[in-house]
């Protein structure tokens, strides 16, 4: 099984080579950040979290979305997800890996990362986030490997993984809830301090993650002989559209509270996002693009005739991912800092090395994902041949 990772055609090696090239660029930039400090980023005393933590937040959502295939398959015995479930679990593994890396590259003193375990702090949400993410990584790795190995041998998986599978379902919800609590528990940041943040995170996760999964499944069935099944892809598309509608509803609820109450604390952040605040408007074009993409995705995906055609579904999944990425991977974190509690408005824009490091982390995640999916595809191809 593992040897499949080391054998492959030209396309496989070119793809891995591409990821490695990006990883090298990221590593070079990270080397600079390690020796010179985080000043090479665009962050400042007023905006202390930027692109790294935003990507972390976005990817926790991608990781959590594995539950959208695990739950129907294992709890409701929804057979159509039989071949999709392993793709979801391995996508979660790669996503959590990237989450961890984004936390480490954001640290001022990454060599001291073990302090989180040496000085455990149950009062800190970040401590809990570390615990649930590590646990989720292990759960998905173990469940994915054991069930897949059993399938390869044509035998049912060991009974001891069953409780782990059930545990992984609430655990997936927990990783994104705890990640939301990281923000929503801060009284100093009114934009983040909202009870709807965790539900919103989950809704956006369950639209962006399965969208990515659909794309992966479509790519794999195009280029290999492994087909996760059109029914499974269609079921995921339904999940994507409902999650997207719920997410849009949550965003509008949030907007109503801010706009109708007219409380400056709640209003300023939304003003900054959609019209700009005191002439600062770096995110305004992004947010209108986000609004257009969201409406476009929701309206078109709701129409069954469009959703059921691969040539429309694939680009619409890209639209969903882009919309959620702008929301979580760009705007959500930075806007928490604008305006600062004492009123200053400092904007943020990532620098070139910061973007290089970010791309490098993504490349590393996709490298791992490529290898994992390669193994899955080869084993599946052999199974179908026999």
């Amino acid at each position, binding site marked *: 099984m593992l040897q499949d990772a080391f054998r492959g055609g030209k396309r496989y090696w070119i793809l891995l080579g591409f990821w490695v090239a990006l990883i090298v660029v990221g590593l070079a930039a990270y080397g600079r950040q390690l020796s010179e400090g985080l000043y090479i980023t665009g962050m400042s005393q007023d905006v202390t979290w930027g692109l790294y933590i935003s990507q972390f937040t976005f990817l926790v959502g991608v990781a959590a979305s594995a539950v959208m295939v695990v739950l129907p398959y294992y709890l409701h015995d929804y057979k159509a997800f039989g071949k999709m479930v392993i793709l979801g679990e391995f996508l979660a593994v790669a996503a959590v890996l990237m989450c961890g890396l984004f936390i480490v590259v954001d640290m001022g003193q990454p060599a001291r990362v073990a302090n989180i375990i040496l000085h455990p702090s149950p009062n800190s949400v970040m401590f809990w986030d570390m615990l649930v993410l590590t646990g989720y990584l292990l759960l998905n790795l173990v469940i994915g490997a054991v069930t897949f190995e059993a399938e390869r041998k044509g035998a049912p998986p060991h009974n001891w993984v069953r409780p782990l599978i059930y545990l992984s379902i609430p655990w997936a919800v927990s990783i994104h809830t705890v990640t939301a609590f990281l923000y929503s528990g801060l009284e100093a940041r009114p934009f983040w301090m909202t009870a709807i943040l965790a539900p919103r995170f989950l809704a956006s996760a369950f639209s962006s993650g399965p969208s990515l999964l659909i794309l992966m499944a479509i790519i794999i069935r195009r280029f290999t002989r492994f087909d996760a099944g059109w029914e499974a892809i269609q079921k995921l598309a339904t999940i994507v559209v409902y999650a997207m509608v719920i997410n849009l509803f949550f965003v509008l609820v949030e907007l109503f509270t801010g706009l109708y109450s007219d409380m400056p604390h709640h209003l300023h952040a939304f003003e900054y996002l959609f019209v700009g605040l005191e002439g600062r408007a770096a995110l305004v074009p992004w947010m209108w693009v986000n609004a257009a993409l969201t409406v476009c995705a929701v309206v078109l995906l709701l129409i069954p005739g469009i959703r059921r055609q691969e040539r429309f579904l694939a680009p619409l999944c890209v639209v969903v991912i882009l919309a959620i990425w702008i929301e979580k991977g760009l705007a959500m974190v930075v806007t928490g800092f604008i305006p600062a509690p*004492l009123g200053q408005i400092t904007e943020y824009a990532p620098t070139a090395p910061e973007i290089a490091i970010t791309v490098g982390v993504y490349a590393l995640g996709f490298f791992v994902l490529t290898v994992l999916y390669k193994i899955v595809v080869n084993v599946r191809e052999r199974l179908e041949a026999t």
Partner: protein
Amino acid sequence: MARWGMVIDLDRCTGCAACEVACKSENNVAAVSVEQADMGRASSWMKVMAHVEGEFPDTTMHFYPRPCMHCDNPPCIRVCPVQATYIDDEGIVGQIYARCIGCRYCANACPYMVKYFNWYGPEWSEAERQHLNPDVSVRPAGVIEKCTFCHHRLQKAREDARAEGRELREEDYQPACVDVCPTNAIIFGDLDNPSHAVHTLKDDPRVLRLMEDLGTQPKVYYLRPRD
């Protein structure tokens, strides 16, 4: 047990920023280049903030010198994942530089923006290096640093008092910003000690505390300007 706190009379503050300078010099806070300051990377444990009220030309301006509030219920301590920030028995909020992982979570949790991150290592000219304060540690890149109410001065004052075989007096322990203020706008002492000036001043009808409604219970009190 003492409970150290500060009262700042806004009527007396002229906004001269002597406290800012004294603080940087006392605590080895390096000055940054103009470009880095524009990027928002300057550290100022004590910062004089200007507050403008009204529309031009009918405006009034007040200056709020802002050190760490040394909250009794500090949000920064709650969020730290490695317990690198703590509140001691006498109410001073400190930072363990050698343990801090530089995640900046505390900086985001602090409503007063007093937790400063070192975006790079401190840089001094040779002349400045000669004048570093040996009583205060120099912080590396990648950690959070903050106002300590000049805690090293308390340790020194306590040792001196013990050597002379007497109790610690109010004037023995005063942070650098208090010492240097030309208008005596900043008053410092033990909030629980009736013989200290801050003990009575903290109950003055003019008293206000910044963002008190957040429940942080700051130990820095401001005396509202008289109209």
